């Protein structure tokens, strides 16, 4: 059904298009506001019309952003990318191996573990953060990057999604054939199963990447050094200062510009990679 077809078809599609148009406005306006606001100086941010441009100050904002507090924003950006990248890689690798192992092998305790896996998905991650903090502080690794990365490796849903995906798209016959040819189990996993699992792995990778990139509670609890903060925690500390100290320091414009730069990489990644993750997401949704 395309809009270019016969008269009654266009009559039938104008309503959905109007509704979708309203949706586009709703989802886009806040993002547009950030883009526009990031081009303004702090006085313009307070005084000029919210959804239109004033003097173009974006480059100055970016320059100030990266020099404020000794250039700590750059550290936050690097930290965020590092924590998110490491966590996502690790979680994906663990989920790939576990999902494959559960889908294509039988071993003692497997049934129990699969039932437990479903339960693990239901355990709210934030309920684990405070106890994990207390344990890691006994072990003296709070306030290090590992206190953020290691707990982020836990992705029961990732393992579940890979398991479902392998069940559907890695044929048992193929694995058996490789075994008959006397390929080792690791080699079968690496060279045969992994390429076939790619959509599921991209999905798990992207979704854990976003979860860690956007995570606020875990780093807020774990970290106390400003140099170790990710963007989310760093920007809120600036925002707090901006509110308490509005007269003396120009920080609102930095919070806004910093927010914009924090969003851009992920939005771009998702839009560019959507063909990969959509098929993976579907596998998880169907079960």
């Amino acid at each position, binding site marked *: 059904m395309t*809009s270019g077809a016969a008269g009654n078809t266009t009559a039938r*599609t104008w309503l*959905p*298009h109007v509704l*979708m*148009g309203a949706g586009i406005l*709703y*989802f886009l306006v*806040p*993002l547009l506001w*950030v883009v526009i*606001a990031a081009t303004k100086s702090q006085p313009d941010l307070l005084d000029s019309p919210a959804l239109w441009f004033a003097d173009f100050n974006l480059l100055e904002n970016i320059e100030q952003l990266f020099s404020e507090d000794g250039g700590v924003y750059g550290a936050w950006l690097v930290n965020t990318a590092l924590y998110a990248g490491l966590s996502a890689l690790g979680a994906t690798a*663990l989920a790939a*191996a576990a999902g*494959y*192992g*559960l889908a294509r*092998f*039988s*071993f*003692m305790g*497997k049934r129990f573990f699969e039932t437990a896996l479903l339960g693990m998905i*239901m*355990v709210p991650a*934030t*309920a684990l953060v*405070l*106890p994990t*903090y*207390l*344990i890691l502080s006994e072990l003296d690794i709070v306030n290090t990057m590992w206190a953020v990365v290691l*707990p982020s*490796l*836990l992705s*029961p849903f990732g393992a579940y999604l890979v398991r479902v995906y392998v069940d559907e798209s890695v044929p048992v016959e193929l694995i*058996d054939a490789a*075994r008959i040819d*006397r390929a*080792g189990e690791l*080699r079968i996993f690496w*060279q045969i199963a992994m390429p076939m699992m790619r959509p599921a792995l991209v999905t798990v990778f992207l979704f854990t990447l976003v979860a860690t990139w*956007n995570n*606020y509670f875990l780093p807020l609890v774990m970290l106390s050094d400003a140099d170790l903060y990710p963007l*989310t*925690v760093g*920007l809120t500390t600036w*925002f707090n200062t901006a509110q308490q100290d509005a007269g003396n320091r120009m920080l609102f414009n930095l*919070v806004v510009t910093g927010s914009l730069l*924090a*969003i851009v990489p*992920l*939005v771009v990644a*998702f839009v560019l990679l*959507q063909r990969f993750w*959509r098929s993976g*997401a579907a596998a*998880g*949704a*169907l*079960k």
Partner: protein
Amino acid sequence: MTRSVPITAPAADDLPPSPRPVESPSRRRRRRVTAHPVAGALFVLPFFLVVVAFLVVPLGYAFWLSQSSKSLALGTRFTGIDNYVRAFTDPVLLDGLLRVVLFGLVQIPVMLGIALAGALTLDAVTTKFAVAFRLIAFMPYAVPAVVGALMWGFLYSRTFGPFADLPALVGGDPIDFFSASLLLVSLGNIVTWAWTGYNMIILYSALQGVPREMYEAAVIDGATPVQIALRVKVPAIRQAISLAAIFTVIGTMQFFTEPQIMARFAPQISAGYTPNLYAYNQAFAYSDFNYSAALSFTLGFLVFVVAYAFVFVNRRRGARS
């Protein structure tokens, strides 16, 4: 990893086959397929270790901590279920729970309803405009909750945002999005903005997997797109809808970031506004780690029970139909 490593893997089947000269392929296959009890467990082992370290142990530790209390006069002593008795009679926690439940009862159906309507539209309308809608609706998912809350906080505020003063154009009073009566709605809007597109994509992906044959007959019989959507497509993706609902419930019960950020705009957001915020503040504002552990454990347990009951009921219903 060098290329030679995986080939010389320590898997059992790299050993030379037993010297049995004639063996039918099918027989050999059956034996080989079931012959690796260790390999499967080894694939799962790393994940299992992470589960133990960052799920089982923290839960156990929280439970152990919650069994004692600390006071200046008496030091740390075993108090059994006292912390739980305190939790379930603590008006702050109960208020917070009630608030989150009420919030979820309104916000979740609204959001999933919009997401489902959007997904059905995308499934039926395949114009370029629909593709643009799909991409744009999904974008907020990639925006950190912190940034989303800050953005909406600015947009709601009278100094920065365009909306609060809109009624003034027709002579009305400005809207106070942070007032007691609007605060939950304002928070609900932030969450809806962030997660509708994500749920829509999940449901849309599920719809794409529904075989066309399921509704071809209905199309020939002259059923309208709306009838097909409601009678054929929605029942066909019931599983995906309930999965989205479960994850949303789990997320809502953990409500933390948005209210915590919004507290800077709306001071009436108290330390116990949501259960999770309360647990956090018990630990870091009042240094009562024992009670905080009890709160974390209670919250985790409640979410777990609700979600599991949901899955259970849903499975039974699915099995019957």
